[in-house]
């Protein structure tokens, strides 16, 4: 309406050439990207952040880790300090989770146990990942005879329940934190190896691998630099499952008497000690097992969240 009025009011004799110039301003930044480009990882992070359950689990896990690191440093008690005047006390303001049969503070033992159990779990996860990726990558990439022999070996190991291997290896090495890590990792990498081998198999004929090979890249370079990043999401998801299962394995070993040596505390030791005294002092089982359950729950929920974030096809 306004413009029509304007045209009418305009002095037609005073028209300027500039009014007839082509106006490109609307197309000037047609090439410009209005939003920052979303990479796979930032997209995954956005999805993960949007998943409330997974985020809460992640926060709780961070808290558990922080407590495990700092609580034993700041506590007035130590994990192996005995106080025979305060044995089997229930929870109180002095001993939040009570004391055990040697008068040791269970609260500090729980967090000391968290240190040991989480250390075992994380180191096992890293070892599993590294060995599994190298082994599976080599088997998958070279294929043929190498693949056949390597996968036969995996099958042989996998044909026995993993716990039997772990028990045998611990018997050889004698119980301790390091032997437990080695024993669990020694057979645990099979899963990762199989997984990554499958991924490599389906990826190795891709054009980008051929391009890299044409430019003279070596096999290990291609496996680690090109194939691994493309197969990262299933590997991360399986890592998130390795951690809780390692915590379980440690607990199982402690329960059958092959856990870390005394007086070291681990969640497995605490829970199995507590289970023996369930009838007389139930709180001694309650607190360690609550801590184990919450941590496991968070790892499992976070693992589900990671799966949904990294592999949207899997979302139900």
């Amino acid at each position, binding site marked *: 309406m306004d413009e029509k009025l304007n045209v009418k009011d305009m002095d037609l004799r005073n028209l300027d050439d500039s009014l007839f110039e082509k106006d490109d301003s609307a197309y000037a930044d047609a090439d410009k990207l209005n939003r920052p480009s979303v990479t796979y990882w930032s997209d995954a992070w956005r999805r993960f952040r949007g998943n409330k359950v997974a985020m809460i689990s992640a926060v709780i896990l961070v808290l558990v880790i922080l407590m495990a690191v700092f609580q034993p440093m700041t506590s007035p008690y130590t994990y192996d300090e005995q106080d025979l005047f305060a044995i089997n006390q229930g929870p109180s303001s002095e001993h939040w989770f009570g004391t055990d049969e040697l008068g040791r503070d269970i609260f500090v033992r729980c967090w000391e146990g968290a240190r040991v159990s989480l250390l075992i779990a994380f180191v096992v996860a890293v070892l599993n990942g590294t060995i599994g990726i190298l082994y599976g990558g080599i088997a998958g990439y070279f294929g043929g005879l190498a693949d056949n022999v390597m996968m036969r070996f995996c*099958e*042989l190991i996998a*044909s*026995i*329940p993993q*716990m*039997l291997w772990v*028990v*045998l*290896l611990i*018997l*050889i090495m*004698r119980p301790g934190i390091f032997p437990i890590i080695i024993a669990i990792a020694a057979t645990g990498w099979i899963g990762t190896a199989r997984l990554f081998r499958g991924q490599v198999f389906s990826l190795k004929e891709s054009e980008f691998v051929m391009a890299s090979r044409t430019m003279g890249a070596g096999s290990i370079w291609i496996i680690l630099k090109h194939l691994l990043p493309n197969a990262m999401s299933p590997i991360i998801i399986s890592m998130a499952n390795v951690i*809780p299962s390692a915590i*379980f394995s440690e*607990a*199982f070993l402690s*329960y*059958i*008497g*092959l856990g870390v040596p005394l007086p070291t505390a681990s969640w497995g030791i605490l*829970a*199995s000690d507590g*289970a023996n005294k*369930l*009838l007389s002092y*139930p709180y001694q*089982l309650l607190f360690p*097992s609550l801590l*184990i*359950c919450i941590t*496991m*729950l968070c790892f*499992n*929920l976070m693992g*589900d969240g990671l799966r949904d974030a990294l592999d949207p096809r899997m979302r*139900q």
Partner: protein
Amino acid sequence: MGKYVAKRFVSMVITLFLVATVTFFLMHAVPGQPFEISRETPESVKEALYAKYGLDRPLSEQYVIYMKNLLRGDFGVSMKYKSQTVLGKVTSGMPVSAVIGFGGVLAGCLIGAGFGILAALKNKGVTDYLVIILAILGVSIPNFVFGSLIQRYFAVEWKLFPIQGWKGAEYVILPVMAAAFTNVAYYARMLRTSMLDVMGQDYIYTAKSKGLNQNEIVGKHILRNSFLPLVTSLGPMCAGALTGNFVIEKIFNVPGIGQSMISSIQNSDYTMIMGLTIIFAFISVICYFLVDIIYGIVDPRIRIAG
């Protein structure tokens, strides 16, 4: 089919042989002497003991003897208890372990599958969330914690079942419950996922558009296809059923093979550990073999590929 079975059989025998060999050498790598006791032992007694168990011979010779004995079905004797043999322990413990193990798998599978089906049919409903919570709790609670808990409540507080032991039918229930717990969670989750997966397939739309009613679609098209991953998990499950309930057997003091394994580990009864390990390994290898054969019958694709 004959060729497939033969091939599988040969590979099973090779696996058994290798497993026995590895176990033998691993056990002989265990540090320390088998008859180390804190008391002073006269040399002659030691020598007699070593001679009795053949430990004075070179390792290679011991290996040959051990393998020959295995072939004759002799898995060795206990080092700590004179009259016990590995085979004796296994024959007395196996039925008990099998009751608990297969009871746990069966109960877990039925209940878990039921939950899984319910959850998938009521996808995103209250039932679904309850089942998901149950499934996650099931994999988050260690089985010895769960076992101890039901022991405390069902046996000690409410006195519904005996606390421990193995003297009759009522002693079976709690251990089986404990063994079923993880399986319920596992199967519920698995069946829910696989059903949702199948429900999204094109042939389900086809079935719907043909005008089949809901019951027919669920019964004939969805369920049948959703059970495939369950069949795949049977091999490890059956192997685990016989060998995987160490902790539960210990909690409820059930005289199964798991309990024997734990006590021989705690007594450092090395010949017993070695014999039991080999038997456990044999059981699981044979289970895998049988399951492979069953697959071959069920799914012709595997037969051709294998």
